[in-house]
């Protein structure tokens, strides 16, 4: 226990780590808030700049950016009606109407408070649940990992509101990209086309920066001349009465957010949308109708999206399966630093787990402090012209990508994927599944081969194994359900049973 506490407090007691977490959270709030700058983009660019650092320093900075970034999106959603990040789409629905009534300060104060509550809730569940999940995960069969990875890829496609076929395509593309190079088991060449440069595979970080950094910057070129909106800011600290009134909803949505975050492949954006939907159904008589400035409409998504951060770390640290796109990038960073997230990480390197928990807790505290202060300066910085911001992002992307291996080839890959990513994004493909597929590729490849070899290359044997193990069967049925839920038969069935149609808000369109 004292050792655990020592690991937990590592970030709190070492000035350098404390400073990096604070800087990370502060930067995260701004990165998350500025439309067009995403946390995923920032973390992927950061990998290249921090790979030569001590691992703890890099992880502290990334955890801060992640926590701050998820919260930061709400500020621009409230002030400008432009969600800084997909996780804040739902916040804009009621946050902006509140701001129009002159209550922007109060809305920001409330969103900061519930985000902090949500953040702590997610971390608490991470600290309690992860050791159990990890112990349980040791008993996982290779087929379970395979099914879990496939489930994660399908979840991204089906829950985020975009086209399932496009989500599946993107996920499969990611898996395929991850197999480029020499096969780790047999040294057979895969998709190398005889080029020695391709023998080691395509740099995952180059693909990430291209897909999230360059393509987003190119996409934002369409919105260069978006006019700014001026806001009045008065009271910021929310009243105790308000907090007390919305606490039960905040806690319910935190639990929902943690759960959604913990599902492989789904993160804060989906958690926030589902929590908003939950708030709408469960609030019988809101003071103000939803969509016109209901405070419940801010409380629900904000509690959920920050709770999802802690949730997303659960499968990442215990199974090596990222909870969402940002944790997929963080897994990439952990690989770069020689760590191998998975059930053995908790046994072999418990300090990493408790260090992360302590780190996230500290980041949440900083998020609250920075969230409640500096809002007036904030509004000025957020209005930085994109004509300056976008070239700087592109420059950082190129320099960052070059710095990983001092290789111009990586820069070319990054640009190629940046341009392809731009077109994919424009035509409604989601880029998250590509990165998840890329990260999960090795896990899928290894576990498929282990599973099928242990069954003497028999598909029937593999299916028997799936049908006789409760966990495998559960995962398999979830996958079947996810595929079935995209069919017209399911839509008709749902309409008949529930008598209503879902309202879809597509995060890829923001």
């Amino acid at each position: 226990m004292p050792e655990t506490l020592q690991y937990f407090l590592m970030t709190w007691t070492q000035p350098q780590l404390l400073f990096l977490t604070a800087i990370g959270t502060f930067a995260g709030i701004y990165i998350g808030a500025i439309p067009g700058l995403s946390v995923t983009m920032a973390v992927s660019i950061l990998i290249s700049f921090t790979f030569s650092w001590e691992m703890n320093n890099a992880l502290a900075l990334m955890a801060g950016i992640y926590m701050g970034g998820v919260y930061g999106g709400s500020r621009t959603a409230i002030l400008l009606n432009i969600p800084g990040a997909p996780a804040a789409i739902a916040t804009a629905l009621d946050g902006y109407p509140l701001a129009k009534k002159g209550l922007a300060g109060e809305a920001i104060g409330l969103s900061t408070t519930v985000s902090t509550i949500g953040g702590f809730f997610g971390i608490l569940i991470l600290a309690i649940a992860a050791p159990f999940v990890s112990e349980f995960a040791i008993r996982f069969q290779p087929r379970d990992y395979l099914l879990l990875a496939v489930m994660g890829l399908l979840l991204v496609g089906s829950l985020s509101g975009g086209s399932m076929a496009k989500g599946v395509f993107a996920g499969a593309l990611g898996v395929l990209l991850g197999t480029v190079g020499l096969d780790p088991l047999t040294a057979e060449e895969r998709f190398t086309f005889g080029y020695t440069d391709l023998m080691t595979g395509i740099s995952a970080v180059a693909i990430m920066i291209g897909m999230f950094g360059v393509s987003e910057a190119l996409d934002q070129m369409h919105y260069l001349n978006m006019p700014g909106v001026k806001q009045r800011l008065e009271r910021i600290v929310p009243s105790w009465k308000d907090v007390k009134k919305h606490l039960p909803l905040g806690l319910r949505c935190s639990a929902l957010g943690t759960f959604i975050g913990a599902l492989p492949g789904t993160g804060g954006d989906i958690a926030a949308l589902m929590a908003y939907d939950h708030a709408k159904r469960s609030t019988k008589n809101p003071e103000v109708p939803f969509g016109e400035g209901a405070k419940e409409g801010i409380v629900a998504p904000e509690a959920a999206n920050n709770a999802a951060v802690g949730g997303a770390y659960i499968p990442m640290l215990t199974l090596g399966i990222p909870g969402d796109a940002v944790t997929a990038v963080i897994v990439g960073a952990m690989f770069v630093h020689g760590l191998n997230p998975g059930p053995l990480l908790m046994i072999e390197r418990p300090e990493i787990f408790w260090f992360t928990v302590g780190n996230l807790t500290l980041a949440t505290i900083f998020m609250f402090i920075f969230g409640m202060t500096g809002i007036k300066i904030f509004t000025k910085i957020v209005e930085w012209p994109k004509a300056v911001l976008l070239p700087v992002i592109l420059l950082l992307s190129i320099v960052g990508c070059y710095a990983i291996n001092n290789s111009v080839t990586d820069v070319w890959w990054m640009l190629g994927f940046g341009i392809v990513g731009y077109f994919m994004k424009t035509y409604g493909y989601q880029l998250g599944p590509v990165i998840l597929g890329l990260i999960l590729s090795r896990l899928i490849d290894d576990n498929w081969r282990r599973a099928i070899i242990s069954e003497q290359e028999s598909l029937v044997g593999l299916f028997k194994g799936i049908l006789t193990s409760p966990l495998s069967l559960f995962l398999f049925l979830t996958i079947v359900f996810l595929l079935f839920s995209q069919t017209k038969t399911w839509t008709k069935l749902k309409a008949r049973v529930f008598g209503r149609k879902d309202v879809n808000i597509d995060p890829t369109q923001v």
Partner: protein
Amino acid sequence: MDTTPARKPGETGFNILLLLGSIFLFYQAYKIAGFSALSSPGAIPMAASATMVISACIIVAKEFSRPKAEGGAKAFFVQILPFTLAVMCGLIILFAVVLQKVGFILTGLSFLFFSIWFLQKRGPASAALIALLCVVVIYVLFRLIFQVILPEGIIPERDIIASVKHWFAGAK
């Protein structure tokens, strides 16, 4: 469920390109080990590329049930690849081509200057000032503090840094 009511300009072409690319990749995956064994190195690449082919077919098939994009090639260059975006793509590619030979400082400075000038549509003075400021901040932060290696090119940075250090050491 697709929420886009009509096709975007160039969407069909892009999706067909992805389909053709997927078929090519499936063929390449097949060439790794064929159908020799379920645990062969080519099994997952084949499964992934087959999934890509099938989903691309579904995407293309669904595409034709939606109304056609209006405006043809002209609309593509207005909505999808406008002049600003095409110029910026050109500038980035040019930047990547000359980065290693010319070095970070000069290419970074020129890239930022031209792109900010072009995007801001104001006088060159403010663009030059912002570009200079940004390059200085990035250089100090990444090269000097984080010790990230940036391409040196034609400016002998290491010699300059060494002589500045030497000069300061001498002053002590």
